[in-house]
């Protein structure tokens, strides 16, 4: 049976780069795939581009990542699929061509996939926001960006046209990994029986170390060997749609039924109906078998026909958040923190803070789980007071940092406080989701050559 080896090179923008290089050099891969986007990546890039026209609009780590993996990939003939193009896949492709030439690699084809950005027509192509039931037209005045999630098809087309590297704008994460399988095994875009299991494998790979022992360890219950030396996963996929998840030998971490299960279920909501642009995946029929050390076979996943619509993310300006913190320790720390909170509450009245929402927490007590935190615990030895407020204007948000400044010498005894080393006010780009008819999102490919 035909099979291919697909490896992960990143699971988000800030991911580590050494494991990508390791997969490129020692993974013996047919394909290496980068996933670098979060929900707000496109809208944040649009805002940055508007303020700073010199921002190229693709992954800010593109140079580092390509320099790390290109030598290994060129040597092995590994093809690369990447969503590092963000709002400028053509610019990213040209930059990759630059790095290929630097390495003396001529005649390598690099494809740029565009078409997901629909900012100028989003209100014509969408109706409602399922999350709040309002029409998308309610966002008219605040929209900065809108993008539809493309599927695997444009990547498959680029691979068919001979691209050695495909760099895309917004494409659904599992689709980046599914595309090589469709290309290699000749799976049809409507073949849900294969696209279901293929997308499931893509979903396991898209989060990188989250299936190889990352985001997993819990000492005494779930121990992970050498968690400082994790590898990114490799799937050995066969044409039936089952795969063995593995990693480069000699690395830390673990691949077990437990690590893979956590990733299978991660963010899929209804596990019987995980919707991607390509297919609807049913994970409830999946089988996970530990067939060797750090080797788990995933099989039995089902697929259902794809939906008629594509997901759309709409980024909107929604004001600002001001945030800062200061600290207490030793006997009576919590009491001093509570008095500090009271002072802040009174100060916010005095300076007339206009906030949409405000939150003052005690880190070490209730800052993570809020009201669900236990109230019967012994006092913490150390506690940080953290204050955050969402406001309509930057001026109001700035009041948070300014009032925390006041806590330095006009506050409570024994207050620990840093000199602000970063901007304490940030802009809020809220993201709303909607749906658009599939046919209204045509994609396009531009081919470049080194």
């Amino acid at each position, binding site marked *: 049976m035909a099979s291919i080896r697909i490896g992960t090179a990143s699971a988000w923008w800030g991911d580590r780069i050494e494991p990508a290089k390791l997969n490129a050099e020692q993974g013996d891969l047919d394909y290496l795939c980068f996933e670098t986007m*979060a*929900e*707000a990546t496109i809208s944040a890039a649009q805002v940055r581009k508007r303020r700073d026209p010199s921002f190229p609009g693709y992954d800010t780590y593109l140079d580092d990542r390509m320099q790390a993996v290109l030598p290994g990939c060129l040597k092995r003939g590994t093809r690369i699929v990447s969503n590092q193009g963000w709002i400028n896949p053509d610019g990213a492709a040209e930059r990759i061509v630059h790095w290929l030439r630097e390495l003396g690699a001529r005649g390598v084809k690099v494809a740029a996939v565009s078409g997901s950005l629909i900012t100028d027509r989003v209100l014509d192509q969408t109706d409602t926001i399922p*999350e709040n039931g309002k029409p998308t037209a309610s966002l008219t005045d605040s929209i900065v960006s809108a993008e539809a999630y493309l599927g695997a098809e444009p990547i498959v087309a680029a691979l068919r046209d001979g691209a050695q590297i495909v760099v895309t704008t917004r494409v659904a994460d599992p689709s980046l990994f599914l595309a090589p399988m469709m290309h290699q095994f000749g799976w049809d875009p409507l073949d849900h029986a294969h696209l279901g299991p293929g997308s499931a494998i893509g979903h396991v790979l898209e989060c990188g170390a989250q299936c190889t022992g990352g*985001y997993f360890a*819990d000492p*005494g*219950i*779930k121990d992970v060997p050498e968690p400082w030396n994790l590898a990114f996963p490799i799937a050995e996929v066969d044409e039936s749609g089952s795969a063995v998840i593995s990693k480069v030998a000699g690395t830390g971490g673990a691949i077990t039924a*437990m690590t893979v*299960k*956590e990733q*299978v*279920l*991660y*963010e*899929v*909501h*209804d*596990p*019987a109906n995980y919707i991607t642009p390509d297919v609807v995946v049913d*994970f*409830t*029929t*999946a*089988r*996970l078998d530990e067939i060797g050390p750090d080797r788990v076979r995933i099989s039995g996943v089902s697929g259902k026909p794809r939906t008629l619509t594509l997901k759309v993310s709409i980024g909107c300006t*929604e004001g600002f*958040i001001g*945030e800062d913190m200061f600290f207490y320790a030793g006997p009576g720390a919590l009491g001093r923190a509570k008095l500090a909170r009271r002072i802040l509450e009174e100060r916010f009245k005095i300076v007339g803070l206009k906030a949409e*929402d*405000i*939150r003052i*927490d005690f*880190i070490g007590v209730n*800052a*993570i*789980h*809020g*009201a*669900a*935190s*236990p109230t019967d615990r012994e006092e913490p030895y150390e506690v940080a007071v*953290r204050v*955050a*407020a*969402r406001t309509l204007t930057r001026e109001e948000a700035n009041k948070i940092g300014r009032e925390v400044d006041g806590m330095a010498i006009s506050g409570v005894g024994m207050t620990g406080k840093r000199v602000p080393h970063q901007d304490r006010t940030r802009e*809020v*780009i*809220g*993201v*709303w*989701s909607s749906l658009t008819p599939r046919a209204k999102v045509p994609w396009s490919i531009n081919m470049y050559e080194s």
Partner: protein
Amino acid sequence: MLMQLRNVAHVRSGDKGNTACISVIAFSPELYELVREQLSASQFKAFYKGVIAGDVTRYEAPGLTALQFVAEGALGGGVSRSLCLDNYGKALCSAILAYPIEVPERLQNELRGL
């Protein structure tokens, strides 16, 4: 014997918009049945004491010994709007580890972290 969910299952959080997706994965098929019987969607929501503003839907995946809890309105408006220190809600799942689960003695060997 009364145990914590921590000894019976492992958990992971994910986020989409303002919705948290919390997986509860039992360490064995027998323990899965216990969790299925003792942790309903409404019990799950109540345990979070108001942190989850919207509905909780529970999905069952017995083949994976897992329950999936999809909690709407749990993330303070979503990643970029949230005033919570943990704005992605990636640590949100750990609260449910303290949920009490009654486990018969015969399943003691399947528990972890004792």
